[in-house]
């Protein structure tokens, strides 16, 4: 804590090396004769110890992005059409299945939305954590057991030694998610993919799990890709936010920029749809109300050269979308136009970290 105190709130130096760079990732699914583009040309960058929040409504391709990192997309029906995922300067998409086995759970771990069904019902919690440890660490059963007990204690499960022998159904939802986190972190991963880890939990448990994740991230200097559709969670946890819609990035900025100056109408729509206490309204504003408003899709501020925010539908889709850095370190998905063609295009890449203990208020 003391070291962090001396740091400024905004660190905007690009000195450290990115931990993971996703570039132009495109994943599609073949379903009964039609092809769904789940992710279409997505790029993002995560630095060590950074938290990137991947935000967007259901079905916009968040889980597919995370699963692609671990190459857990079933092929078929899935197909990773193009792109690269550089992790510590190796392209994960070029690794063989055998090489991926050494990455999964070791360098990159993942936790999921459904703590109820994500654990194997016929094995004890301990057996499942120990399995992960034995896979990636060169230890014997006894040492693995000790590591598992420590991992359980680290996520706040008391009487860890007895609890190792419990079956998943003997745990509550929150406890199971703790066990999932213990399992994911038992091998000290550098990156944690958290796919809506608190969505299925009730609010108080949700807060506890988030607090736990923050604590563990700080202790272990771990980067987190946090998938959520809860903007409150984003506000409290994220360093960088990537807003997705229909498999594409609509806005990409650090958390303060995004919340203070949202540029894309969809992002504004998301903020507008957050209910406010005391707001003199009978009905909540929906995202649709904002994105269907033609006024919103007029030229972006500061761009009089015909730069308009992108939205799916209508014209030729592949030519129609450009992710453009409209201000330094602030990217917005724009409609293709001549002016943008002449601009240098940059990959979304923000090396920014907030002070981890300040749970932001905006």
């Amino acid at each position, binding site marked *: 804590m003391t070291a962090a105190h001396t740091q400024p709130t905004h660190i905007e130096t690009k000195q450290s090396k990115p931990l993971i760079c996703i570039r132009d990732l495109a994943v599609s699914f073949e379903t009964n004769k039609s092809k769904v583009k789940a992710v279409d040309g997505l790029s993002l960058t995560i630095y060590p110890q950074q938290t990137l929040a991947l935000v967007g409504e259901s079905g916009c391709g968040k889980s597919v992005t995370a699963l692609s990192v*671990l190459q857990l997309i079933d092929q078929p029906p899935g197909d990773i059409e193009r792109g690269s995922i550089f992790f510590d300067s190796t392209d994960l998409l070029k690794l063989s*299945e055998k090489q991926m086995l050494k990455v999964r759970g070791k360098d990159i771990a993942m936790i999921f939305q459904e703590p109820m069904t*994500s654990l*194997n019902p*016929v094995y004890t919690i301990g057996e499942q954590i120990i399995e992960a440890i034995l896979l990636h660490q060169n230890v014997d059963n006894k040492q693995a057991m000790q590591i598992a007990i420590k991992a359980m204690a680290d996520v706040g499960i008391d009487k860890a030694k007895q609890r190792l022998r419990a079956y998943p159904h003997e745990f509550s939802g929150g406890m199971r998610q703790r066990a999932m986190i213990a399992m994911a972190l038992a091998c000290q991963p550098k990156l944690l993919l958290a796919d809506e880890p608190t969505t299925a939990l009730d609010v108080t448990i949700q807060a506890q799990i988030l607090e736990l994740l923050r604590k563990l991230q700080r202790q272990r200097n771990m980067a987190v890709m946090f998938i959520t559709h809860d903007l409150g969670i984003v506000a409290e946890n994220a360093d960088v936010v990537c807003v997705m819609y229909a498999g594409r990035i609509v806005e990409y900025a650090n958390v303060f920029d995004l919340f203070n100056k949202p540029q894309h109408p969809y992002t504004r729509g998301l903020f507008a749809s957050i209910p406010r206490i005391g707001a003199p309204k009978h009905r909540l504003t929906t995202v649709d109300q904002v994105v269907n408003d033609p006024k919103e899709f007029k030229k972006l501020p500061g761009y009089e050269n015909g730069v308009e925010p992108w939205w799916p539908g209508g014209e030729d889709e592949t030519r129609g979308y450009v992710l453009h850095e409209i201000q330094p370190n602030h990217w917005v998905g724009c409609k293709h136009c001549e002016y943008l063609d002449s601009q240098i295009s940059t990959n979304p890449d923000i090396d920014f970290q907030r002070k981890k203990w300040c749970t932001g208020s905006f």
Partner: protein
Amino acid sequence: MFPTWIGITLIVFMIVRFAPGRPGSESFEAGYLSADGQAASLSYYQRKLGLDQPLYKQYFSWWRSLFSTEIVASEEHQTRTFEFTLGYSLTSRSSVVSELKRRLPITLLISTLSIILIYIIAIPTGLLMAVTRGRRFDIGSNTLLLALWSVPIVLVATLLIGYTTTGSLGVQWFPNNGLSSIGAERLPFFAWLADRAWHLILPVVCISLGGFAYLAKQTRASVLENLSMDYVRTAKAKGVSGINIIKHHVFRNSLLPLITIFATLLPFMLAGSVIVEKIFNIEGMGLFTFRAVMNRDYDVVQAMALIAGVLNSFGLLVADIAYAAADPRIKYR
């Protein structure tokens, strides 16, 4: 369980009484009785078996006949002995229980062997089908299983007898009759055992085919269902390899629903034994039931149905207990 059994007796009782034919009527079909003789024969059996009584009285008197009481008079005093007989056979005149003592082990032997065989072969088959889903092995097996499932035991048995026992195609691999060769009881133990096994092969194969097809399909479905479960994704994310996902994670979970199928297979086996024992001339419960049905031997048919019901409910009980033992989520209360 008792209410179930009583329900079974009621239903079987009604079916038997309303089925065409009467005790004694099978002798008419041979055509060696005059019309008068037929009428006399029928009314003899009617009175002898109380078939002229109202149905409910017949039903209760059947219950009474399950336990015969005998009054044995000795010089000093009379003693009443109770004997559990399950009624008497009209044709052999022996009690059903005494027949069962000889026949039930034979039928249970065939059924048990078949069920064991089914599980041993069907589970790996289904697993392999699930893993090769959509590929040639899976599609081929699916077709074959459908065929096995649809082909009647009678046809399979006839074909097997025709091609493997008679020597008409140059092979005479198996015996086609009974459970032992003549004089087998004088053989040394292991030779006797081999002889018994040799006789058992065809009947067990015939009776297993349908159940095998069923269980293999269930195994395939169960494995596929488990492969799409969240816990499989978790295991993959941990770095467990594909083969270990199947071996350590999916296999055990997929077996759970298969345990209870034991209770489904048992009635299959008992029903199949009627046909198979008839075809291979094996003196088990099935053949006994078959004869009883042909002879309209009411008491025996009813007793057999009752026994099948009791056996099946024990099968259910065993399946439930085994399931509870295998699944940590279920505890005895």
